[in-house]
């Protein structure tokens, strides 16, 4: 996984609350293998019209925001479906960080697993950042995960909280499976205890598992 330490980049504002992952990537694209093509799927049905032409009013279609690597959104961005492809699409487009007053729980975890930094700021601060981005299209925001600060276009710095595990994984670009496999001894011990104490959990212990076709 790619590490995240700090980033200064153009940021785009998204003011609508409850932007769901169906809107971030419509279901019909989910069957596609992960590739650069995912950049085009991002916000597809709000970004392009039925003929595939760009809708000029959509924020990422406006020249100043095209190269955005940061999104500053409203409440509950990424709610709904667990589809990790929403993050794949953001990633393929080049988005590395999403700043919001709140994010869908599964979406936030999916971000971390893909090296995208989710930043939670109080609603007023996020709204203030969005206002500045509207006032100065193309303005940049600086994000520093080491010091846990976001610096807005006006130079004001905001501190944010992030859970230490996610921070460590992001800073190191750690492969989580490799990390967990390091806990093999604990896993084994747990599994033995499970079979002793809660033998009913494993279906078919004692050979009673129904046949599957």
């Amino acid at each position: 996984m790619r590490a995240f330490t700090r980033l200064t980049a153009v940021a785009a504002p998204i003011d609508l609350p409850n932007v769901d992952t169906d809107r971030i990537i419509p279901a019909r694209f989910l069957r596609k293998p992960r590739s650069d093509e995912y950049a085009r799927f991002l916000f597809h049905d709000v970004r392009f019209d039925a003929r595939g032409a760009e809708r000029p009013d959509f924020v990422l279609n406006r020249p100043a925001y095209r190269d955005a690597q940061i999104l500053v959104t409203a409440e509950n961005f990424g709610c709904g479906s667990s589809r990790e492809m929403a993050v794949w699409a953001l990633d393929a487009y080049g988005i590395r960080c999403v700043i919001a007053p709140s994010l869908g729980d599964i979406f936030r975890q999916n971000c971390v697993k893909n090296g995208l930094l989710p930043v939670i700021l109080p609603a007023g601060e996020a709204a203030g950042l969005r206002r500045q981005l509207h006032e100065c299209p193309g303005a940049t925001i600086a994000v520093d995960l080491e010091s846990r600060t976001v610096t807005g276009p006006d130079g004001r710095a905001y501190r944010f909280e992030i859970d230490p595990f996610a921070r460590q994984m992001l800073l190191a670009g750690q492969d989580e499976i490799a990390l967990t496999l390091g806990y093999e001894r604990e896993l084994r011990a747990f599994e033995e205890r499970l079979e002793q104490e809660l033998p009913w959990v494993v279906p078919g212990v004692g050979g009673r598992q129904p046949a599957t076709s």
Partner: protein
Amino acid sequence: MLEKIWARHVVAEGPGGHVLLFVDRHLVHEGGTHALARLARAGRRVRRPDLTFATADHYVLTTPGAPAGDAETGGMLETLARETAAQGIAYFGVGDSRRGIVHVMAPEQGLTLPGTIVVCGDSHTATHGAFGCLAFGIGSTEVEHVLATQALWQRRPGAMRVTVDGRLGPGVTAKDLILAVIARIGAGGGTGHVIEYAGSAIRALTMEERMTVCNMSIEAGARAGMIAPDETTFAYLEGRPFAPRGERWQQALASWRALPTDPGAVFDREVALEAAEIAPTVTWGTSPEDALPITARVPDPARIGDPARRQAAERALAYMGLEPGLPLTAVTVDRVFIGSCTNSRLDDLRAAARVVRGRRAVVPAWVVPGSGLVKQAAEAEGLDRIFIEAGFEWREAGCSMCVGMNGEVARPGERVASTSNRNFEGRQGPGARTHLMSPAMAAAAAVTGRLTDVRTLG
């Protein structure tokens, strides 16, 4: 209850308050092929194939008699069958009557058990919490992680309790109850929390109804919902194919009876509703929180104080093609969909059939059973005849038009009365307009051609 289940699944303590949690049941559907392929490429094996169960639901076509997949999705189904076989995972695939929506299939097979941790690469995994287990959706990377390790790194979520006391009125169902809860707490109201549903109205629900409630926890932002197991739960589970038997059943029962939350336990957040105040409910907008009693009118955005909310409501009404002030019962529909992991079980189909019997659908209407076994059971009772005689399409099991991943979508601009769980823009197809409601209400809409208070149909 959350606390008790959490504590017994901790494998190891990790950094920053995270723990490695053991997973008792990992459910896999076609979406898991991405992760299975990555796992195979990395040369890794599935750690516990005996705790992993797969089926096909999202991409399978549900047209009766037609092939299960097209050129692209057929390949996906083949890959899933091949990869699960190679890894020794039980797979309920095309042609197996146990195949169905993963959240219908697993409870039906007795795979979902109280006190366990259940995960699946699908946000409606919350459904399984109806059995008093901790069940939540995960992303594709996490699916791969569970396949490889049978565990997940998690931080303990907050605990929220939603108490619903009293009795639901006639014509008011579990679907109306959960829509009313979401309208109350909002689409982000449960974010970061697990919701425990409690109260006399919840206790009175059947297992199928409890699944409907827990299913839509994610629509309130909560990754999981749960209901304490009781005699209703145990009666449902006993004798199911994968449920424990004999001595193991007795051991399990003893363990399950100790699960319910102790009196006096403190929750991070409490919400209470009166069952008697809940009416048959429908959504009018593009977020599940946009829900109102069927007796209400389309809201007027101009009367919303908060500018962001007002803008969202204006946008929702424009997308939905609705005028403020219109009575909801005056909204005409173009199509009806009865199905999805929220409402495709036998009791749901019975409730719809009761409304449909002796009437005719005046718009195209589909019934998509949740599993092959639900379909068989419904046919054994003659429900299929009732639907077919009323002009409904009786289809094969799958997710179908809940999400339209398999291409079964509504046309742009079409207004759908749907028993599914999401009314997002484009959810049922680009430009499609979704109104969520119970199976009885969807059936009523099918026979009248408009949103209808099922209580007035008699």
